[in-house]
């Protein structure tokens, strides 16, 4: 029972705290706090982390505000019971307005990068082409971004991962090969990965190169200040500038504001609270929005699930998750066409598997009893490229907290129906004895033909077909034209000179791939420009 006191592996966060990093847990404040800095960054995830490092290395005084707690490898005990309430928004049970989509978002120092499954893709060329051709966004092409992706790949250890996939992912590769469909290995942001499979509960060995163990430690070592358990309430605008940031401390549970206030005055402000948090901050602040764009066109990669029982053990809870993917149903149709989808294989831990399997009672218990033989595929639908896929809208509740209204449309259900069929075909091709498309009460099928027939007749609908999302994107799109974009090509707010948006809310569509590397690369480019605009030049990488 030495877990709590003796780190099993060196813990760079505890070492940094011992060395005197400037970190304040706002839940423990005994008085209001006033902070002055060159740059105030709201959020410590993929966007805020990269921005913090870039700006701190440029010699700027940075303060980072994070709504969640600071937790590190010594705390990461690979238990769902701890991880979901501690490290995720709304205990990993955040829902869209009609409750039809469960949204998993990180909420801790490092944000989503602390709990994601390490999948690393450059922004697909088809997506960047659409931005250039259909949306008229210059300077974000494959070649323009390549050096920034290369820089972040080197920074975060993103490289081919040569360890054989676990059986859950191997089944995806095997089924795809049988069907004559391409699949490939997923690059991962890890160094010295132990192949445990618990990335989603915080990496216990610090192998995952999240913001928690990379960019944020660099920034803190360069004198940045980090305030945790604090919620940015509003940017106070004076003229064409932000005058100050007003924030509120949260209590130790992390859910409820206290009376303690935190005020930050800075030359420049960076919104990096993710694609629900950032639009919500702007909406609460009443920042200028002459064309009503803020929070609109928010995208999710709406994701459906297909479960199978294999004749042999799969042990999907062990070994790195999401190491194989197939883009066959993205690459064979244009983004502007019918909804395409990406196939991946998630981790299968008891709670995640159990809440995903539909129904209850003895039938549910029988499925769970086969957990070691369970093989699961997910299909992530590419949204935001077609007129019938306008995404969702972030709005505010009475208490100022955000809620995303994301209607599931016939366009998306059409893609999901094809995805259910593709996943069932693939799982049977990989040797499945039984396949259950996760829909309705959870009917299972013994042959591909039976599954296909049933799937064709599924009445897909909200709250009948479970839909999940781990990728929130958009809501503050970038672009030259203020009538269509909240921020300009540098990420600078079109109406407020000293406000930047540097996170996944920049994206004018979904990415069509797990978005972390898109955020890293694009924010690295924009943060570099921000440093230059503040009179600093970050040292060459």
């Amino acid at each position, binding site marked *: 029972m030495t877990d709590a006191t003796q780190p099993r592996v060196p813990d760079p966060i505890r070492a940094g705290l011992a060395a005197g990093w400037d970190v304040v847990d706002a839940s423990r404040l005994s008085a209001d706090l006033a902070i002055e800095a060159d740059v105030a960054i709201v959020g410590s995830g993929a966007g805020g982390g990269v921005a913090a490092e870039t700006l701190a290395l440029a010699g700027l005084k940075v303060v980072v505000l994070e709504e969640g707690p600071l937790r590190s490898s010594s705390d990461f005990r*690979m238990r769902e019971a701890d991880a979901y309430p501690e490290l995720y928004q709304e*205990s990993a049970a955040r829902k869209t307005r009609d409750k039809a989509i469960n949204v998993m978002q990180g909420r801790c120092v490092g944000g989503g990068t602390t709990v994601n499954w390490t999948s690393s893709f450059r922004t697909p060329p088809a997506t960047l082409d659409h931005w250039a051709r259909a949306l008229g966004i210059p300077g974000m092409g494959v070649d323009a971004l390549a050096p920034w992706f290369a820089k972040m790949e080197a920074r975060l250890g993103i490289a081919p991962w040569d360890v054989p996939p676990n059986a859950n992912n191997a089944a995806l590769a095997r089924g795809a090969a049988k069907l004559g469909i391409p699949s490939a290995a997923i690059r991962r942001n890890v160094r010295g990965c132990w192949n445990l499979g618990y990335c989603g509960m915080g990496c216990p060995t610090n192998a995952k190169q999240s913001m928690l163990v990379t960019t944020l430690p660099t920034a803190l070592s360069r004198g940045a200040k980090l305030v945790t358990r604090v919620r940015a309430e509003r940017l106070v605008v004076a003229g064409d500038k932000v005058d100050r940031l007003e924030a509120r401390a949260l209590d130790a549970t992390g859910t409820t504001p206290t009376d303690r206030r935190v005020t930050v005055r800075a030359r420049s402000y960076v919104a990096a609270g993710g694609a629900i948090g950032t639009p919500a901050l702007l909406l609460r602040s009443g920042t200028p929005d002459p064309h009503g764009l803020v929070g609109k066109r928010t995208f999710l990669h709406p994701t459906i699930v297909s479960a199978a029982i294999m004749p042999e053990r799969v042990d999907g809870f062990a070994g790195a998750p999401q190491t194989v993917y197939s883009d066959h149903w993205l690459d064979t149709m244009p983004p502007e066409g019918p909804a395409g989808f990406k196939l991946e294989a998630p981790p299968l831990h008891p*709670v995640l598997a159990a*809440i995903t399997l539909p129904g209850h*009672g003895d039938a549910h218990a029988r499925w769970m009893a086969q957990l*070691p033989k369970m093989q699961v595929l997910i299909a992530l639908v590419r949204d935001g490229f077609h007129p019938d896929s306008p995404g969702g809208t972030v709005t505010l509740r009475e208490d100022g907290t955000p809620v995303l209204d994301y209607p599931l449309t016939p366009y998306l*259900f059409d893609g999901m129906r094809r995805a259910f069929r593709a996943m069932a075909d693939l799982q049977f091709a990989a040797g499945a004895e039984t396949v259950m498309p996760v829909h309705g009460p959870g009917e299972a099928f013994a042959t591909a033909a039976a599954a296909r027939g049933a799937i064709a007749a599924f009445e897909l609908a909200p709250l009948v077909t479970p839909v999940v999302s781990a990728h929130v994107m958009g809501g503050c799109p970038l672009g030259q034209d203020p009538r269509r974009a909240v921020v300009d090509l540098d990420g600078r707010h079109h109406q407020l000179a000293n406000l930047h948006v540097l996170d996944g809310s920049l994206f004018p569509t979904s990415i069509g791939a797990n978005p972390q590397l898109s955020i890293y690369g694009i924010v690295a480019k924009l943060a570099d420009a921000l440093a230059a605009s503040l009179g600093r030049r970050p040292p060459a990488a």
Partner: protein
Amino acid sequence: MIDLSRRRLIKAGIAGGALLAIAGGITWFARRVMNEGAPRALDRDALAIVRAIVPAMLAAALPSQEPGRAGAIDETTAGVDRAIAGLPPAARAEISQLFALLALAPGRRAFAGVASPWAEASASEVDAFLRAWQSSGWALKRTAYDALHQLVIAAWYANPRSWPAIGYPGPPTLAV
């Protein structure tokens, strides 16, 4: 098929709105049922509802007899309570409305179709209520089913006591 879905959705939306209005109308009662701000979220009435739902939701997943069964139900009920306590205020308020609706005898009978008081309801009676809500044309009932499903099932499978029966060895031990 799309037309059918749309009709269903519209119907569900209207009916759900009506149910929500009723639930909202008795929010005052929720303040008595829920004990907001305390480390434990649920009071005795709400805990009785959860305790009645746990055996129906989990059925064969629970130990079938003593020793073990009563403790498993107690721990799952406590886990649901802890989970609700950790949710943001807006989500807690919605759940409090649901339990307020179900705690009143007329609400229990009219909306859940459960004749017996929760503490006396049989597992089959509760199972019938859960199945009806799962496949209801009212979106709000399906929403409530999903919430109860997620809360109860997560509370049980987060508990190491549930792991041997599903062949989950637990997290690996990291050698120093």
